[in-house]
Each structure stands twice: as structure tokens, then as C-alpha cells.
């Protein structure tokens, strides 16, 4: 395989270079994103957080082929665990993240243990059922824990035991999340999320390259055969499920860290659908794909939502008046409030024509250029194919 597609499988050296490039790209995001109108911390944080969420989802879906439609439940559980840590212990984000990972792992273990007894669509329905149960309960009887529709918030008079012991608890002002004194808002918040994203990416890469990862891919390609060779696949799929649940929990904790608030709508099944969209859009089974997918979706969510009629009128101002009105009316369907329509259409097109997502698109374009050179070995192979 050519070095440029090291996202699929490469030597230790190409992996290292790939990793460095990824880290550099993430850490310089505030710089280059400003050119495409995305250079503000709010969006950058979302990129990093949802990128992490999608990476984790991909460990389950991309590697084992199990399509979970209930991953948002872990995102929600992570958020709730983090906010409770803020309320009870300290506003420091590290314990919050630790608790979020712990709790989401426990839930993932229980849910995964039951759901993974089935495959295919039954697995999807089971995860969906569990997510809906969590969502419904969070809204109704678990209100003492989740604060129902209002959502769980931090308030100045929370106990925060650790801060109390250290004598720094301030009940007068609204508390803010911090990492040893550095407030987790704005750019510091982004860099914190970015570092965790890079670590998460690194772990995901190590998993994909490890014998464990190979085993997961084997399960995806033919689980029956794996079973026939006397191999128990359950522990492997369960491990993948729990790891991916932990990623989701961590993403939930980061959401709560940048904005200390947790609501049940984060667990709704359409939210689970969103991470599926991200992963497929970017390219399931690839390392970089899910991050790209998350970035693209969150980017367009922000950019397209901001479009309004005036912007469109300005855009199409070169057209004659009659055409302009038509163009604005048609384009208006797809932007602003209706940006989900764009998302749905793009997603359908991707599933129909490019099941490998953006990454496959890049690969195809790459191959095209190779072919036009006509000199390289893979180019010749592509021609003969």
C-alpha cells in the first residue's frame, strides 16, 4: 500500500509520521481554521470532542462491523458523571473525566454483555432499546439524579468536598471548570480537548495495529468462520464495545467540561444517529475518517446554520433578478434552518455511491492521479484492474 494511505495499514515509521502530522494539524487548528471561518474556540472544541466520540464509535463499528444505534447513551452518562463530579468533588476536570470513563465503562459492560449476544439488526435494535430506556428514565423517574428536562447544572452552593477541604470553595460566584487553575473555556479548553483527542487517536491507532485489532477485523469479515475455528469472539467484541463506550463517556465529560451542563437530549437516539453519520461520512474502518466526518458535520452545522437570505442574496447577486430569486429560494432550503436537509442528501449520496466515505473518495482521487502518471507500479495495476 502506498505511504499516503497509511491510515489503512502501514509500517511503524509511516505510522509515526502520520501521527505527528495529525497532532500538528490538530494543534494548529486555531490557525488554519480561521481561513475557512471556523477559527473560534466553540467550534474547535466541538471538532475535538465529536472527533473523539466518532473515533471511539469507529472502534466498534469500523473494526467489528457491529452497528450500534445507542452510543449517545454513553455520551449522556459521561456528561452526567462529569457534572456530578463537579458538584460533589471539585471543579477540576481530571476527576470528572476519570469518573465519566468509569461509569460509561460499567454501563457499556452491562449493555454490551446483553446486546452482543445478538448480531446484525438485532444488535442495533438492542442498543437502540437500551439507549431509549436510558433517555426515558433520565427524563422521568431519575429526575433526582438527572434533573429531568432542566438539565443538570453546577451551582455556587454545591458541596465540592475536595475544594472545601482545600479551603478554596467559593459559594458566592458561579464556579467554572478548570485544570489546576486554568479555566476550561475558550482556547485553553480547546487545547485540553485537542490533547485528549490526540491521545485517543494514538490509542485507536495502536488498537487497530495490534493483534487485538486484527482479531476485530477478522470478526467483521467472517464471524461464523471465526467461531468454527473454535474461537470465542464474544470477549473481543465486548472489549471493543466497552472501549468504544469509554471513548463516548470521555467525549461526554469533555462536553461537560467546556460547558458544565448535562441534559437528557444528549442521549436521544437521533444523537446516536449523528455519530453514525459522522463515521460513515468520513469513512468507517479508517483511522482518520471519523475525525474528518465529525469535523465536516460540525463545521457545516455551524456555517450552514448561519446562512440566511441576505447572505444568499449577496452570493447570487451576479445573476439576473429572475434567476436570482429562484436560486435563493432553492438554496434557502438547504441552509440555515434546513441544513439538516443538506446533511441527509449528502449522507444518502455517500451511502449510495461512496460507501467508504470521504477517505475512499480521497483514495479514488489519488488513484486517478496515479493513473494519469502511468509510470508507477500501482498505476499500472489500477489500469489492468
Amino acid at each position, binding site marked *: 500500500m502506498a505511504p499516503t494511505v497509511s491510515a489503512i495499514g502501514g509500517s511503524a515509521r509511516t505510522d509515526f509520521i502520520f501521527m505527528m502530522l495529525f497532532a500538528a494539524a490538530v494543534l494548529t487548528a486555531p490557525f488554519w481554521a480561521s481561513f475557512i471561518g471556523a477559527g473560534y474556540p466553540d467550534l474547535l472544541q466541538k471538532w475535538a470532542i465529536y472527533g473523539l466520540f466518532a473515533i471511539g464509535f469507529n472502534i466498534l463499528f469500523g473494526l467489528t*462491523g457491529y*452497528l450500534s444505534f445507542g452510543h449517545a447513551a454513553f455520551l449522556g452518562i459521561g456528561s452526567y458523571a462529569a457534572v456530578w463530579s463537579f458538584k460533589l468533588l471539585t471543579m477540576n476536570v481530571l476527576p470528572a473525566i476519570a469518573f465519566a470513563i468509569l461509569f460509561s465503562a460499567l454501563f457499556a459492560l452491562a449493555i454490551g454483555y*446483553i446486546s452482543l*449476544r*445478538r*448480531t*446484525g*439488526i*438485532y*444488535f*442495533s*435494535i*438492542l442498543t*437502540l*432499546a*437500551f439507549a*431509549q*430506556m436510558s433517555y*426515558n*428514565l433520565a*427524563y*422521568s*423517574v*431519575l429526575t433526582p439524579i438527572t434533573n429531568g428536562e432542566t438539565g443538570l447544572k453546577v451551582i455556587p452552593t454545591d458541596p465540592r468536598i475536595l475544594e472545601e477541604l482545600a479551603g478554596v470553595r467559593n459559594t458566592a460566584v458561579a464556579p467554572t471548570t478548570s485544570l489546576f487553575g486554568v479555566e476550561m473555556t475558550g482556547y485553553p479548553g480547546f487545547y485540553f480537548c485537542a490533547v485528549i483527542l490526540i491521545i485517543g487517536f494514538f490509542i485507536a491507532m495502536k488498537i487497530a495495529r495490534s493483534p487485538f485489532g486484527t482479531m476485530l477485523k477478522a470478526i467483521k469479515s467472517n464471524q461464523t468462520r471465526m467461531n468454527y475455528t473454535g474461537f470465542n469472539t464474544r470477549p473481543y467484541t465486548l472489549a471493543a464495545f466497552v472501549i468504544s463506550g469509554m471513548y463516548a463517556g470521555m467525549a461526554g465529560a469533555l462536553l461537560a467540561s467546556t460547558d458544565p451542563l448535562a441534559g437528557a437530549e444528549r442521549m436521544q*437516539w*437521533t444523537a446516536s*444517529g449523528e455519530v*453514525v453519520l459522522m463515521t*460513515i461520512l468520513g469513512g468507517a474502518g479508517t483511522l482518520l475518517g471519523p475525525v474528518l466526518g465529525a469535523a465536516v458535520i460540525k463545521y457545516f452545522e455551524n456555517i450552514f446554520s448561519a446562512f440566511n437570505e441576505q447572505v444568499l442574496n449577496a452570493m447570487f447577486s451576479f445573476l439576473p433578478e429572475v434567476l436570482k430569486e429562484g436560486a435563493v429560494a432553492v438554496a434557502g*432550503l438547504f441552509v440555515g*434552518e*434546513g441544513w*439538516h*436537509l443538506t*446533511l*441527509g*442528501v449528502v*449522507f*444518502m449520496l455517500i*451511502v*449510495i455511491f461512496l*460507501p467508504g466515505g470521504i477517505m475512499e473518495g480521497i483514495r479514488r482521487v489519488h488513484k486517478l492521479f496515479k493513473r494519469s502518471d502511468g509510470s508507477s507500479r500501482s498505476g499500472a495495476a489500477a489500469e489492468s484492474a
Partner: protein
Amino acid sequence: MDAIVLQFLDGLAKGGNYALIALGLTLIFGTLGVVNFAHGALFMLGAFCAVTVQKLLTLSERVKDESITFFDAYKEIPYLETWFGDTGHMLIDYSVPISLLAAIPVMLLIGLAMERGLIRFFYHRSHAEQILVTFGLAIVLQELVKAQFGANPIPTPAPEVVAGSLDIGVWFNVEGSIVYPYWRLIYLAFSTVVISAVFAFLQFTTFGMVVRAGMQDRETVGLLGINVQRRFTIVFGIAVIVAGLAGVMYTPIQSPDYHMGMDFLVLSFVVVVVGGMGSLPGAVLAGFLLGVLQSFASMNEVKSIIPGIDQVIIYLVAVIVLQVRPRGLLGRKGVMEG
């Protein structure tokens, strides 16, 4: 006692709705082997057929309100009323039943277009990909409806004659104890009729016989020189009609908004799985069963024993059924036993 009867009735009415949607889903899965995540959106489209018909019937002109003399006031009077008087008024009143007639051809067209234009390319792709593409389609349909009709629920009332409630207790000499809305009773009757019609169609017509044979063994039927594909396409259309009619009839119960389909989609999938993928009687049975179970779970007496049970009962049943009997209640052995 009356409380139990009332809950049972409520459960049946709810179950009728679940059964109708699940029936369509199962028809599609049993014939074409396609998992249709856009089915909820089709239900929603049906509901918006009713909204459209109502909008068309109430197209109004602005006339000066003569009763107000201090200033120029205008009021809207539907054309139908100015043209036909009381008959026009009645037509508007009966907009939901009228929409049923309108919905059949519209939904059939939508169904055929969807099958020919999209679904047929996904016969041989994985269930995951089918779920994904139909999920994408559901989002698109939903957003188109939102762009056209806005995000707020649009009230579409039932005809005035059946607006109130019926005192069923009278029949059993216990006046006033079992009072139930007319429209939900009508819904229950309607769902029974539609379900029976679909079953009768499959059971007693030659077309239905071929379809049933095709569901059993598509290849052999094909080898006999029968165009199975064309019949399955029509069955897809029928399933879409059933979803659409269920949507139309549901509008007086819940004012339709663009995401109503998504709420029912998850439930109806659970129903299908509990009944057994590909089993039509299973879907109907599970629909009514889960409806009744949900009704009983939301009784205060039950809720006080197990708090929150009403929120999770359906999903809990699904989880248990999938653990102990993965092929569902009436699923055939060996079919989709994942």
C-alpha cells in the same frame, strides 16, 4: 374493574397504531428483505397528506367583516363555504376522512417511486447499509416537510360528530365509568379493518398467493416464470399506503409535526422484532400486546410498585424476547436468528 377495562381499551387503540406501522415494516422486510428506517417518515407523510387536504379545503378569501363598524375589519371565509354554504362547511369538517381517499394514490406513488428509485439498489447490500440509506432518506423527507409546513404541530381535528367521548359503560349498565374518546375507538376499528384487508388480500387473491409463495421461496417462484419483483414492488407500495393511512388517521389524536415519524420508528421496530422479523401475524400480535402492556404499565397502581416502568416496558420486553427467543414470538425457525 372499569379502570382495567379502560386501560385495556386504551392499550388496544395504541396497539392498533403500532400494529399498522409494524405490519408495513414487516411486509417490506418479508418480501424484499430490506430494513426500512424511513417507515416512520412515511407515516409522517401520511399525516401531512391530511394537513395538505385540510389546507386545500380551507383556502380562504378575505372579506370585510360587516358586523364591526368602528373600523375596517376583515375575516377569512373558506371558498368552499362561500360556494356551497353548509355543504362546504361539512366538507371542511370531514377533512380527515376525505384525506384517507387522497392519501391512497399519493402514498402509492411515493412508495413506487421510492422502491424503484432507491430501495431496489439496496437488495443485495448489507442490512447496515439499508438502515443507513433509509435513515438518510428519513432525514430528507422530514426536513422537506419542515421546510414546507414549519416546525410547529398543526392541529387537524376530527369531524365534530365524533369529537367527544363515548360512554361505553352504558352498554353494561354502569353509566359514566368507562368513557372513551370516539376517535380512538374509530382508530381501533380502522386499524382492525386495514389489517384484515391486508391479510385477506394476501390470503384470498391469486396475487396474494404468489406474494406468499415468493416470501417462502423467491427463487422457485421466479423459476416458474413469475415476475416476483414486480409483485414485491407493488407490495412495497401497499406497505407505504398502510403507513400513510395510519398517519392520516392519527392526526386527530396527535397534531402532526415533522418529527412524529422518528418517535414511532423506534417503537415500531421494537414491535417487529418482538413479533418476529418477517412474520405478519407476529407484527400484529406484538403490536396489540405491547400497546396493552404499555397501557397497564402506565396505571398509577403499577407505577407505584415499579417506578418508571411505563417509560421502559416496551424496550424491556424487546430485550427479554431477544434474549430468550431471538426469532420473536411468531418468527419462523431459521429466519433471521441472529
